[in-house]
C-alpha cells in the first residue's frame, strides 16, 4: 500500500517494495522476431533443466532429424527430454560450459549440407507458433495426453528456473490446482522476447494456456502482463476474449513483477509460503513462452527445439529478437546480430538484474536462455564500494521483506546461524537490494555464497 493506492491513483495490481530500473527495452521492443540462419553446429546439453541430466540416446555418426530425441529424461525423479534442434550428424559427446556457469555433457550435431533440410518447407516460426489453432483439436485433447505430449516434447519452464512443465501441471487430489497463472511479465530490463511472442503469436500463447488448464484441471486462467506492454495485452485480449474463465490482468510495471512470489501477491493478494510453493495456494504458474511451446507440442507434435532470445545491449551491433535453435553457441548468436562493438565488456545470459556473466562464448543457448545482453563499458556501473552506511535502502526495496544487509554481513563475518535467522534461504536473488545499495555492497554475492555454505554444511 503506497500513497498512490491510497488516493486511488494506482489501481493496477502491485506488490510491496521492489525497484524501477530503467527499462532499456526500446532497442528491440519494436523489432519483429527474426529466425537465425541455421548454424553449422549445435551442441545440445543434456542438462538444460532443474533436476537430473537426460541420458544420451544418440550414437556418434547417427543421422538425426530436427526434433528427434537425443537425450531421454532420467528415470530418477525430475528430468526432461532433449531433442536435436537441427537435422544433421551426431558427433562425439563433449562437455560444454552452460550459461549459468555449470558444465554439462552435450551432444554436438553438425548440419548436413547447407540449406538442404526439412525446415526449408516452412519457416520455423510458422511451424512452431503461427497459423491457426483449430478449436476442434483443442476440444479433443485429453488431460493425460496433454501431459504426455508435454513431457515427450521436453518442455521446461522458459522463464528461468527450467522446471519440467509436465511435473508442474500434474495434480493430485490432495493438492488440486484451482488457477493457472500465465506469466507474461517480462520485468527484466533490456529483454523483449516474451513481449514480441505475445504480440506476434497471441493465439499460440492462449491455446497453450488453455491446454495447460485442461491438463491441470484449473478452473480459471489468469494471464498477467505489465502495463508497459499495452500491445501485448491488447493482442492477448483479442485472442482470448471469447473464452470463459480466461482473464487478462494488467499489472503495474515494477521489478521483479515476473517472480511468482511477487506476481501472486499482486494479482491474488495472497502470499506464497516462504518454504512452500504456489501449489500450496492451488496456483500453477507458467511463463508465456512455455505456454506457446505447449501448444506446439500438443497440437503439432513439435519438440522444444527453439526459443526466442533477445540479443541486446550497447555492446552488440544490431540488437534483435531472434528465434534460435537450442544448442547454438553464444558466439554464433552474437555474430548473427553483427558481432560486438569494441568496448563490449560483459556478456550476460539473461538480463542485467539476474543474468549470469558468460566468459566462454562456446556456451550454448539452452531452453532457459531468454536473452543475451552484451553490456558496453559505458553501461557498467562505476561507483566505488564504500562501507555500509546502514541507510536501509536494501530493506526498503527487498520484495520479500528481508534485511539484506543483515544477511550479507552475517555471511561476510562467517556467522551462518545469524544469516539463517535473518532468513538467508528465503532470498530469491532478484538483486533489488544490490541495485539500490548506495555503498555498492555486493549483497547478492554474499547471499549466494551463504547459500552455498549452507548447502555444504547441510550435506556434511
Amino acid at each position, binding site marked *: 500500500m503506497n500513497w498512490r493506492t491510497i488516493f486511488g491513483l494506482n489501481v493496477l495490481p502491485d506488490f510491496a517494495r521492489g525497484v524501477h*530500473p*530503467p527499462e532499456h527495452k526500446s532497442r528491440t521492443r519494436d523489432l519483429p522476431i527474426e529466425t537465425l540462419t541455421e548454424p553449422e553446429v549445435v551442441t545440445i546439453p543434456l542438462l538444460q533443466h532443474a533436476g537430473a541430466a537426460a541420458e544420451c540416446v544418440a550414437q556418434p555418426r547417427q543421422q538425426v532429424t530436427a526434433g528427434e530425441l537425443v537425450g531421454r529424461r532420467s528415470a530418477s525423479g525430475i528430468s526432461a527430454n532433449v531433442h536435436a534442434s537441427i537435422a544433421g550428424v551426431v558427433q562425439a559427446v563433449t562437455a560444454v560450459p552452460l550459461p549459468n556457469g555449470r558444465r554439462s555433457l552435450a551432444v554436438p550435431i553438425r548440419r548436413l549440407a547447407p540449406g538442404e533440410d526439412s525446415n526449408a518447407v516452412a519457416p520455423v516460426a510458422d511451424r512452431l507458433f503461427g497459423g491457426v489453432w483449430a478449436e476442434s483439436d483443442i476440444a479433443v485433447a485429453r488431460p493425460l495426453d496433454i501431459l504426455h505430449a508435454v513431457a515427450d516434447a521436453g518442455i521446461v*519452464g522458459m*522463464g*528461468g*528456473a527450467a*522446471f519440467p512443465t509436465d511435473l508442474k501441471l500434474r495434480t493430485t487430489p490432495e493438492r488440486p490446482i484451482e488457477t493457472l497463472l500465465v*506469466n507474461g*511479465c*517480462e520485468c*527484466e530490463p533490456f*529483454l523483449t522476447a516474451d513481449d514480441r511472442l505475445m504480440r506476434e503469436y497471441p493465439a499460440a500463447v492462449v491455446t497453450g494456456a488453455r491446454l495447460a488448464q485442461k491438463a491441470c484441471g484449473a478452473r480459471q486462467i489468469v494471464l498477467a502482463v505489465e502495463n508497459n506492454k499495452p500491445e501485448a495485452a491488447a493482442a492477448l485480449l483479442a485472442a482470448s476474449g471469447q473464452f470463459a474463465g480466461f482473464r487478462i490482468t494488467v499489472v503495474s510495471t515494477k521489478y*521483479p513483477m*515476473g*517472480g511468482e*512470489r511477487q506476481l501472486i501477491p499482486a494479482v491474488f493478494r495472497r*502470499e506464497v509460503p*516462504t518454504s*512452500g*510453493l504456489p501449489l500450496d495456494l492451488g496456483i500453477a504458474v507458467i511463463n508465456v513462452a512455455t505456454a506457446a511451446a505447449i501448444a506446439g507440442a500438443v497440437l503439432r507434435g513439435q519438440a522444444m527445439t527453439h526459443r526466442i532470445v533477445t540479443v541486446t545491449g550497447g555492446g552488440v551491433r544490431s540488437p534483435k529478437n531472434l528465434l534460435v535453435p537450442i544448442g547454438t553457441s553464444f*558466439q554464433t548468436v*552474437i555474430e548473427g546480430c553483427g558481432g560486438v562493438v*569494441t568496448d563490449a*565488456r*560483459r*556478456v*550476460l545470459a539473461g*538480463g*542485467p*538484474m539476474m543474468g*549470469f*556473466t*558468460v566468459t566462454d*562464448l562456446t556456451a550454448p543457448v539452452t531452453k*532457459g536462455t*531468454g536473452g543475451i*545482453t552484451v553490456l558496453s563499458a559505458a553501461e557498467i556501473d562505476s*561507483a566505488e564500494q*564504500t*562501507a555500509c*552506511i*546502514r541507510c*536501509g*535502502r536494501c*530493506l*526498503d526495496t527487498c520484495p*520479500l*521483506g528481508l*534485511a539484506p544487509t543483515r544477511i550479507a554481513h552475517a555471511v561476510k563475518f562467517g556467522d551462518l546461524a545469524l544469516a539463517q535467522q535473518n532468513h*538467508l*534461504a*528465503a532470498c*530469491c536473488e532478484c538483486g533489488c537490494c*544490490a*541495485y*539500490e*545499495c*548506495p555503498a555498492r555492497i555486493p549483497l*547478492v*554475492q554474499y547471499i549466494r555464497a551463504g547459500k552455498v555454505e549452507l548447502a555444504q554444511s547441510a550435506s556434511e
Partner: protein
Amino acid sequence: MTLSPEPIDRPQLAAATAPHLMDAGSTTRRMMGDVLLALLPVVATSIWLFRGNAVRVTLLSVGVALLTEAAVCRMRRRKLSLPDGSALITALLLAMSLPPELPSFSVCLGAFVAVALGKQAFGGLGQNLFNPAMVGRAFLMACFPAAMTQWTLPVSTPVATDGVADSAVDAVSAATPLAAAKFSHQFTDLESLLTGNVAGSLGETSAIAIVLGGLWLLLRRAGDWRLTLGMLGAVSIGAVAELLLRGREAGFGWLSHLSSGGVLLGAFFIVTDPVTTPLSARGRWCFGLFVGIIVMVIRLFAGYPEGVMFAVLLGNAVTPLINRWTLPTPVGGPVVLPRQPTSEEGEADA
C-alpha cells in the same frame, strides 16, 4: 570460427555477479553531496546572522575534523576517507550546533572528539553507534558547561530586544527563546524564530533556512522523511498537550516549539543520519517519535531548557533494540527450519 567484424576478445569479458545494473542515482557520494548542498543555506544564514564568529567556528571545526580524519586513516593504514564527505558533514553539523562565542580551543577539541571518538574509534564510516556531531557536542557540554550555554544575539539584530544592549558592544549576551520561556516566562515572537533573529546556536536559529535545506535533503532521499516527520510529530503532540494543559498564556505554542532550539536542525539534519538510525521503515518511525518524545520530556519537565542532543544520543543508544523489534518479517512468513533443499522451486521469470 570468428567471422564477426570485431572478433570477441575473450579475456576482455569479465565475470561478475548479478545485478549488472545499479541505480546510478543512489551512491554514497551522492548522498553525502546532497547533505552538503542541503547544509548550504543553513551555513550561509548562520554566517549572515553571526558574521565573524560563524566563520571562525565553522572553519575551525571543518579544519580540525578533516585533519583528524586524515590522521586516523593514516594510523589505521586505510584509504583516505575524506572524499566520502562524511567528516565534512560531521564538522558542519557540529559547528552549526555550537554557540557563536565558543572559544576556538573548545571548537577544535569538539571537532577532534567528534571524528576521532565519535566515528573512527568505532571503525569509521558506517560503524559508529552514536551521531558523531552530537558526541562532540556532548563532550563539550560536559567540559565547558558555562561556555556552551553562553548565548549571544545575532550581529545583524538591529535593536536589542531587552534593552540591556550597549550599542558599543557588538555581541550581546542573551537568553535563548527556550530558556527565556522556561526560566523567565518571556516568549519570543514567531517572526524572529523563523528568520533566526534570536540567540542560539549558530545554525539552529533560522527556521526558514533549515527547512529549505532540509526539504532538499528529503526530496533527494539523502535522509528518510519518516525520521523527520516522526520527530516533528512527537514534538507537535507534546506542544499541543502543553498548550491544553497549561493554557494559552503559559504554553510556548506549537510553531514556537517546532522552530526554536535544535528541533528543526535535529529533525532535518541530525536524526536523518542513516548510520545511527534504525534500518527498517517502521524502525525509523519509532526512532523519530522516540527522539521527539524525549525532547519534549526534557523541555517540559527537566532542568535543561533544551534536549535535542540528549534525545538523539539516547535514540542512538536504543537503535539496536529498535532494530531488533522492527525488522520486517519475510513475505510468506519466516523460513521453516530445518527445511528440505528445494532447488526445484517453480518458475521465476528471469
